Every structure is written in structure tokens, then in C-alpha cells.
């Protein structure tokens, strides 16, 4: 059977994350579900509207497959307009995911904006396998406090011994936390030099990575998750190429030294 034919997944639950972002729990109707790793993504379709890549926001250590959808284009709007019980198409998992076997025990996780969805998978994975990891720091920034994802989960992460720093670009009356760039959090938290996982807008990725380099992180231990236009998830359709690489197959996670050597990647 063609790998273009998706599995069917029923929407089990829909949670509001922000005003324009939902966390959607999916139940795969056929087979034994999806086996995936943090940092991978799936191709999600609404039949009649089409298919697009969505990063997996849940950890494989937990039962429910979750995706985080922000209203952006036709298909994401179609997903958000779906109701519990509706069926979506799912293909995957696609891509490489974070190379946990090479990332060691001490990990810094840095997210910006909606790029934090894929990192939640990694954070919860670490929380669930806490003993395999050492010093773990999570830093995350969004535009305003209303745009922050997964707020009710931060406390649990801290209770699991993770160091968590949150910041917003623009503060308001309701916000008592940090205001400023994600990198500003790096000065305030104790960060052990190890490996890092970053996902966010290109500017944020570059500034975090550069700061980490000055802190003694090695180029090859910083992992970036990239976003690209994709159509197939199989390395065939050509949309996501960076030089000879296809982000959907060779990525979306690349080490920073590799990313920097690739033309036009950021």
C-alpha cells in the first residue's frame, strides 16, 4: 500500500492552549498506534483541505498522541474547526527527532513562540525518565503572557527537578515574571554545559545558540529543530530541501555546526 495513504485518527480531546492554539489529542484507529521519539513530526490531513506537517507535542512515554495546532493556514484552521470524534488523517512519524542517545545527561531546552510544542515532547520525556538525565533547564519565551504554551505544566516540571525559566517580549499588568529575550534567562539560571535543544524563530535560534557557544557549549552538541514548507514527509516532494538535505528526512533536528555549514538554512 502506498505510504501516502494515511492512518485514521479520531480526535479524543481538544484543549485550549492560547486564544489561537489548541492541543489536540488523537487516537489512532488502526494498528497499534504510533511509535515515535521526541522531536519527530506527523503529516496531518483534513480530507478535502489537504495535509501538512505538525510536530508531535506529546512524549512517547505517555499514552496519548498530542499535537499543538495554531491557526495559520487553511489546513490548520480546518483541524481547529474539527470536533471531538472527527477523523483526521495521520502519516508518520517523520524525521529524525532529537538524538537522545548522543545528548548526554545535562540538557538545556530553549523554546520560542510556537516552536515550544515540539520541545514539550522532549521535556515530558525527560520528566518521565528523570533518572536517565542530570541537570535539565527549560527556558521559553513568547510574545505576551497570553501567548505562553502549557502554563499549567511548568510547576510539574519544576517538581521533577527541572530548572524552568519563562519570559515574554511584552509584559502587562497580569504578568509578574520576566520580560525580555529568552537569552536573558541564561544569565539568571544555573546552566550546566552539556547539550541543548532549540526550537523557535530563526533570530531566536541564532541568539540562543551564540550565547551557548560563549558559555562553553560545543557546536555539535546544540540541536536545532527547523521548520520548512513540506508536502510529503518522505524526502521526495522537494519543498523542504536545504542544499542536498531534506528537512523532513535528514531533520528536522540538526546539530548547530551542521546547520551553519548548510547554505541559507536560517
Amino acid at each position: 500500500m502506498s505510504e501516502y495513504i494515511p492512518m485514521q485518527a479520531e480526535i479524543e480531546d481538544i484543549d485550549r492552549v492560547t486564544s489561537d492554539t489548541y492541543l489536540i489529542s488523537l487516537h489512532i484507529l488502526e494498528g497499534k498506534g504510533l511509535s515515535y521519539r521526541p522531536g519527530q513530526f506527523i503529516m496531518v490531513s483534513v480530507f478535502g483541505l489537504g495535509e501538512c506537517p505538525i510536530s508531535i507535542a506529546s512524549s512517547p512515554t505517555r499514552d496519548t498522541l498530542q499535537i499543538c495546532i495554531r491557526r495559520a493556514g487553511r489546513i490548520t484552521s480546518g483541524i481547529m474547526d474539527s470536533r471531538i470524534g472527527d477523523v483526521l488523517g495521520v502519516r508518520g512519524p517523520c524525521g529524525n527527532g532529537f538524538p537522545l542517545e548522543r545528548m548526554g545527561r545535562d540538557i538545556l531546552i530553549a523554546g520560542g513562540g510556537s516552536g515550544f510544542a515540539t520541545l514539550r515532547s522532549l521535556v515530558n520525556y525527560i520528566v518521565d525518565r528523570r533518572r536517565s538525565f542530570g541537570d535539565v533547564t527549560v527556558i521559553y519565551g513568547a510574545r505576551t503572557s497570553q501567548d505562553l504554551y502549557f502554563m499549567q505544566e511548568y510547576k510539574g516540571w519544576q517538581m521533577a527537578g527541572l530548572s524552568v525559566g519563562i519570559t515574554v517580549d511584552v509584559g502587562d499588568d497580569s504578568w509578574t515574571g520576566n520580560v525580555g529575550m529568552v537569552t536573558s534567562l541564561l544569565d539568571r539560571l544555573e546552566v550546566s554545559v552539556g547539550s541543548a535543544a532549540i526550537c523557535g524563530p530563526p533570530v531566536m535560534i541564532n541568539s540562543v545558540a551564540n550565547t551557548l557557544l560563549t558559555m562553553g557549549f560545543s557546536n555539535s552538541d546544540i540541536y536545532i529543530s527547523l521548520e520548512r514548507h513540506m508536502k510529503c514527509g518522505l524526502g521526495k516532494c522537494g519543498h523542504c530541501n536545504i542544499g542536498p538535505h531534506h528537512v523532513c528526512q535528514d531533520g528536522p533536528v540538526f546539530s548547530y555546526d551542521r546547520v551553519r555549514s548548510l547554505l541559507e538554512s536560517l
Partner: protein
Amino acid sequence: MMIAFLSNNEMVPLIEALAKRLEVIAPVLSGGQPVFATWNGQELALDAENPLSSPLEFLLPSREALFRYVQLSGRYTFEEPSLPARLILGIRPCDLFAVEVLDRIMTEEPCDQAYLGRRRSTVLVALNCTRPGSECTCAQMGSGPGCVAGYDLALTPLGDGYLVESGSPAGVLILREHPQFFREASNEEIARKEALLAASREQMIMVRPDLSLQSMQEAISAADWERLGDLCLRCGGCSFICPTCHCFNVLDLGVPDGERIRCADSCILSGFSRMTSGANPRATQGERLANWYRDKFVYMPEKIGLPGCVGCGRCHRVCLARFDRRKLEALP
């Protein structure tokens, strides 16, 4: 390998015999011009220049349904299209080389079953080029004028008929099943083939002695891409006509039932790489053109060990813009 001779007047009877169990695709005339189309007894255009639209569209169509989705009480069933068994007659060495390129790309894991399905049900009868076209550079690119692999049968026109060589069990089978159309080839005919192809090769190299994969790579590094981008008229023709271009878009048509379609896409278009946020990793036309060339001459050799240019000259023939696509320089 089997070698035989097919005289000109046995060609049509052979095709008639083959067409009984396969859809035969061959160069025929439409609007007075050669095109690859289903042969239904029309006059063959094997002597004409290679059709502008390559026969690769029969392996990776410019538009095909990947599957049909049918909804019933909230759940879907999927139907895959059935693929016709085909024989492509008269595919030129350049296009045959493009098949090899696509084979490597599309069947590399994870394999594209839609492509593989068509590929497996297609017999390739190649036609070696004894008379290159004015834009042909297969000799320089290493794909022709004679094909060396990848065919089921290869024909070389010798004037009064064709030297026929088998390149696969399927090709041998055709020769064995239709002995009445073939006779043994003579050593003179085999030698004549070699001489004709050598002359054809020489002719191409004489026209463009400096062209090579390497000269293209050098031109790519030296090119003023922003200037070329300003000249590009954004027709996308080079990417739609290139036999190794395989990028596609996927879209759904129909609610609640419908088809998931894939159709040819073009990296020359800004929407190809633009993300939903509006950000575009290849923001200018120059960057997009550069990417197209690098993909052919740098990335593909690196990835699959073959150049993405087969020297068919089609991108030159369809280009609306005013630059030399071999030197990558603006015309005066």
C-alpha cells in the same frame, strides 16, 4: 544480451503485436509536431526530434491521483488508482538517464510506491540518437547519444532498419515472443551503430567543446544570481520540462469524497518554499534559480551519484528569459 535487426517495415507490425497486451506510448504527430502519446495506429514520428515534453510524465505524471477518499459515517476508505501496463517506445538516452535519476531518488527508502508502481509496469524501448538536436548536450553530460543501461530494448536507427539490443529479461522476452519481425544482426550493422553514435557524439562536442558538468559547476559559483533572478520571467518552464525535475505539490479536491492529487511543482515559484508564517528561506528569484541549478549540478551528484542534468536541452528551448542558461550570464 540479444542483438537483432528490425527492418523499417516490420516496425508497425511489431508495435501492433505489442499493443495487444500493453498500452504503447510512442512519438506520434499532433498539430504536426512530435509528442509522446498512446499509439492507436497513428503514423510514428521516430525520425523527428525528441518531443519537447519528455516521456518521464508516464512514470511521474504532472498530475495524478494518489488515492481517492470516500467518507462513510465519519470514517474513510481509500482507493488507489489502477495503473496501466505500458511500453514506451522511442525514449531517448537522455530521458532514459533521467529515469535512472528518478529511480534513485524516488525508490530510495522510504520508497515512493506511486512511482514504483508505474515504473514496474513500464517497459522501456530506447532509441539511440544518431542525429543530435541543436540544443543537445548528452555527450557532454554523459547520458548519450547511445544508452548503456536501464533499457529493456535499445534501438539504433541504421537507415533501412534498427539494430535491436536487449538490456533486460523483459527485452529478451519481446525478441523471443516475436521472432517473425526480427532477423540476426550482422557484424557490419553492429559496427555501423558504433560509428554512427561516435559521429553523433563528436558532432555535439564540436558545437560546445567547453561544456561539461564541471564547467556548469564553475558557472554556478561565478554567476550573479540576483541579476539572473531579475531577468527570469518566472514561467517555471525549466522546472516543468526538465525530465529529472520531480518536485510535487499535494492537494485534496472534493468534499466529503474526493481525491488526493499530486501535481508537478516548481522551486522557481516563491510559494514553493514559503512557509505559512510568510517567511521564505529562498526569498529572491535569484536564490530560487541558484537552488534549481545547484540541485542539478551539485546536490544531486552528491546525493545520488548522478548529475541532475541529462543534456536534453529542453530548459533552453522553453526559457522565456534572456540569459544564457549554459554560461549563466545575461545576454547583452
